[in-house]
């Protein structure tokens, strides 16, 4: 078990705290935002949400929209993954799990939370839910997966090759993979320009990409006790919906829904995603386990 302490915390506003948790010798930055009271203005109680970002992401990059909007109705804690120290050649799922657990135990001691993970973060959140059922009684996976398959390995291989060659094509390739067809159909290259220079390429990202290549948490899924919502992205080329369907099939208390976006759902359809998560957190049993919840038509 990770030993964790809150090292520092600064109050940014009435309901917004930033701090750092020490775990395994590294400092993990977190944000703690939103009402401390579980009763929202509509009278429903929502447990705190813990947001876990994806590969190469950060609180701001993956949850820049979701965090302030979710925090208008419930307490939200989000953390930035940190590269383990001392530097090693390998990043394991265990490293990232311990960082999530540390943030939960330090910021929300004794509380059961709703874990929300996106992409690699969904893998981490699912593993935490399996290993620590006391910590999370609700789980939301967004574009998550259980075992890396051939399509993902192919993509990962191209990525690694471009990265090794320091290719100028890498940002475009990442956008090409991340964004959904319907979204791209409405966008121009000019509009995408800022996105194409967004990514930070560093060794920690390389470690996460290496981890992505060998994910296999299939043995853990049956142990997830949390009330779970699995969200697949219909036009996802990086983690196609069959992966979310597999999570839906394996996690006992799971319900499933889809969003018509690419993998970059936090960017393409943040308003839809935030409302789905908020409603699940207010009433997780609204749809019984096994439900395929159709995407709402507007």
């Amino acid at each position, binding site marked *: 078990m990770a030993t964790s302490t809150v090292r520092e915390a600064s109050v940014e506003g009435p309901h917004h705290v930033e701090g750092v948790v020490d775990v395994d010798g590294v400092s993990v930055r977190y944000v703690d935002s939103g009402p401390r009271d579980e009763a929202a203005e509509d009278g429903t109680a929502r447990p705190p949400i813990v947001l876990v970002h994806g590969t190469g992401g950060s609180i701001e990059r993956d949850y820049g929209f979701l965090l*302030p*909007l979710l925090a*208008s109705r419930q307490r939200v804690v989000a953390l930035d993954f940190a590269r383990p120290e001392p530097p090693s050649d390998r990043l394991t799922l265990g490293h990232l799990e311990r960082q999530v657990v540390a943030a939960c135990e330090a910021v929300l001691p004794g509380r059961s939370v709703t874990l929300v993970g996106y992409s690699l973060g969904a893998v981490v959140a699912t593993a935490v839910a399996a290993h620590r059922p006391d910590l999370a009684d609700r789980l939301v996976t967004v574009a998550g997966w259980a075992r890396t398959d051939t399509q993902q390995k192919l993509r990962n291989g191209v990525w690694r090759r471009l990265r090794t060659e320091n290719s100028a094509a890498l940002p475009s390739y990442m956008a090409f993979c991340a964004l959904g067809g319907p979204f791209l159909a409405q966008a121009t290259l000019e509009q995408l320009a800022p996105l194409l220079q967004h990514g930070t390429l560093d060794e920690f990202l390389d470690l996460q990409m290496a981890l992505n290549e060998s994910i296999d948490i299939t043995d853990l899924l049956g142990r997830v006790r949390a009330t779970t919502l699995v969200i697949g992205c219909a036009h996802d080329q990086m983690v196609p919906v069959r992966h979310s369907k597999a999570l839906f099939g394996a996690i006992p208390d799971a319900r499933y829904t889809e969003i*018509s976006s690419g993998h970059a759902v936090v960017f393409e359809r943040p*308003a839809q995603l935030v409302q789905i998560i908020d*409603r699940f957190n207010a009433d997780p049993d609204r749809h019984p386990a096994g439900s395929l919840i159709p995407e709402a038509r507007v």
Partner: protein
Amino acid sequence: MNPTSDTLTHLPPPEHADVLVIGTGFAGLGTAARLKRRGTHSFVVLERADDVGGTWRDNTYPGAACDVPSHLYSFSFRPNPDWSRLFARGPEIHRYLRDTARDEGLLPHIRFGAEVTQARWDTVTRHWVVTTARGVFTGRFLVTGTGHLSDHSLPDIPGLAGFDGPVFHSARWDHGTPLAGKRVAVVGSGASAVQIVPEVAEAAAEVVVFQRSAPYVVPRPDRAYTDTEKRVFRRDPEAVPAHRAEIFWYLEAGYAARRAAPHQLAEAKAAARAHLERQVADPELRAALTPDYELGCKRVLISDTYYPALTRDHVRLEPSALAQLEPGTAVAASGARHAVDVVVLCTGFETAEPPYAHLVHDGAGTSLAEHWAQGMEAYASTTVAGFPNLFLVNGPNTGLGHNSIVHVIEAQVTYVLGALDWSRAHGDHDVEVTPAAQRRYTGELARRGADTVWHSRGCESWYLDPRSGRLTLIWPDFADEFRHRNGTFDPPAYRAPTLTPAPVTP
């Protein structure tokens, strides 16, 4: 009401229907179409004008167009594959509503020229009695679809009577007044004005725009649909819903800025600022066009032609209100005097105190307006305690700053139909919301709206009630949250149909 026997003989006998609907805009026609489609034929729609279309019938000013893309600004149950552009112009939207009335079989139900003069709940017959310019109508249920932008607001301008040229409101455009070669004053700089100014500037010799406060203006990504796209919309039944969804969720993200999420608000302001800097080079004009309040407090306007029109040689921006009129002259609050021949009032609509509220009375004869002395309120934004079987569609707390009102209207219509079914299933029990439920809901919205830009410092807008400062017009949340919260009739908020015996507990 004390009609003489003489007027009585001239009035037809009361016409009765299960449901009375007021108005033939999106709210009224949407309600009627859904009633008709589900096989409810006992309804009458009261319309004061001689044509359907609401706002889109009345606002015939040059350049009138919608600020919400048309595929979304139309009924989900009546997709129109033939929208000519992303943002259709007024006449095309009006045509859509006329087609809706005809094709949905609503025309036989509509009574034109039936301006409502009074509606009251009869506690004896348990019916609504609605008096109109063409007779009395009775119905078990009353649905108002009177809209936010139906009664235009005329400011009290000193010297108006003495002004010697034409003066008219944008929503009552005087097409008989040619503007070619004239000096025209446009009073106001809101949604109507930014559409009107570029058009008027084409014809008029001189234009002066009186601006009390500068609006935020962002680009209008308009374009025509190709014939191929239109045919895909016709041939593939999934194409329109998919297109609607893309637009809807794109717009829906705009709520983050209204909630004052710092990053999203900064991004929205940067987009507006970049638009201004791209289109206006003159630093003085730029400064005058820079808003001094938070983005989203008032409606964010969408135009690519407004700023360029203001940079034309014969167009001037007067950065103050119109103070008074003198013959041949419009005097600004700044003291500046502008020689003008025609005055166009783009001064908006009666929103905080809608005129219909004075016409609708409860069983004791108290009007909605009196109930609403501190501002409009309705449970689920639809029903009012003390007013049984009354439903307000597009009434209090339904307005959106970031998405399509038709989405809200459709959710409300579904709610109303659910209420009708519930009433029927319980022996025609009256639908009457409890005061407690209404208080709870109103309090919830007040708390929800507290941290939004509508309550930001220095924000004064038509979304707020001037008497109480309450946010009475705006729905202070995501548009889809409206449907989630208010799209399904919820019996617990209403007076129970029968006394249920207390459960026996061992």
